[in-house]
């Protein structure tokens, strides 16, 4: 009950903020229309954003910043990797689908891990097996096929940070 109310309040202020950013008009009628629409949104779809209870730590903010910096760096590296493969006349690729084991359990953490893997060099998440905690990853330049080495090489880049942030 309490988390549901908190989730509704967060959704209300988030949608009001997005309304103000999109319209960029600070007149009274526009603001009233925005409040009404944000109320409708939070009544009908408010309880889906925050599902579980967790405490606020200052450490988590620090880990989030570290994650964002690391993610940006990996994104830039990934794009230069793609550019190298595409320009090369002989297309040096060695594709395959490998398995990666993960320790994360929450849905939000798994989604963020899959998104991070998709935007980092040479990898693309194909499917998630939630019960066995296995990710199937398409790798454009396969170096190992063993599950432990792939876990260390692909998942290990983000898993520790995401564990600190989400769990």
């Amino acid at each position, binding site marked *: 009950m309490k988390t549901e109310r908190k989730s509704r309040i967060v959704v209300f202020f988030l949608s009001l903020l*997005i309304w103000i*950013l*999109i319209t*960029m008009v600070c007149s009274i009628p526009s603001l009233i229309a925005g409040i009404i629409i944000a109320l409708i949104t939070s009544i009908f779809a408010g309880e889906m954003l925050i599902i579980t209870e967790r405490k606020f730590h200052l450490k988590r903010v620090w880990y989030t910043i570290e994650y964002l910096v690391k993610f940006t760096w990996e*994104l*830039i590296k*990934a*794009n230069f990797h*793609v*550019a190298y*493969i*595409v*320009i090369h006349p002989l*297309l040096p*690729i*060695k*594709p*395959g*689908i*490998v*398995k990666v084991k993960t320790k994360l359990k929450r849905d939000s953490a798994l989604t963020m891990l*899959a*998104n991070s893997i*998709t*935007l980092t060099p*040479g*990898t*693309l*998440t*194909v*499917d998630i097996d939630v019960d066995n905690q296995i990710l*199937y990853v*398409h790798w*454009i330049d*396969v170096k190992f*096929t063993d599950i432990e080495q792939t876990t260390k090489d692909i998942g290990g880049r983000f898993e520790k940070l995401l564990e600190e942030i989400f769990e």
Partner: protein
Amino acid sequence: MHDLALNQIIGYIIICGGIIFDFFGVLGLVRLPDVYNRLQAATKSVTFGSVGILLGVFIYSGFTATGFKAILCAIFILLTSPVSAHAIAKAAHKAGIKLTDETIIDLYQEDKELQK
């Protein structure tokens, strides 16, 4: 072109970088051999390129309506484009579209056959 402020010049440089990466991604879409490889190159490079263009527009126009909308749009693209990539990859594999002949390993197919 001669009376631009400094932030406008930096914005144009970032926009040009984004357009170059867009171009590489589209080139990968044409050149690479099968759906999964095309999806990799295209999703990564075109997402990064479009986010770069939007960041350049934000730096060009400063803290105005255009700038804030550009930031909102960039966050939206970064969150949604990997999700649609997963959806297409999973659907293509379940629909039985073959990987290219250069593929060396496919553990997903082996696990699916084991479960049957």
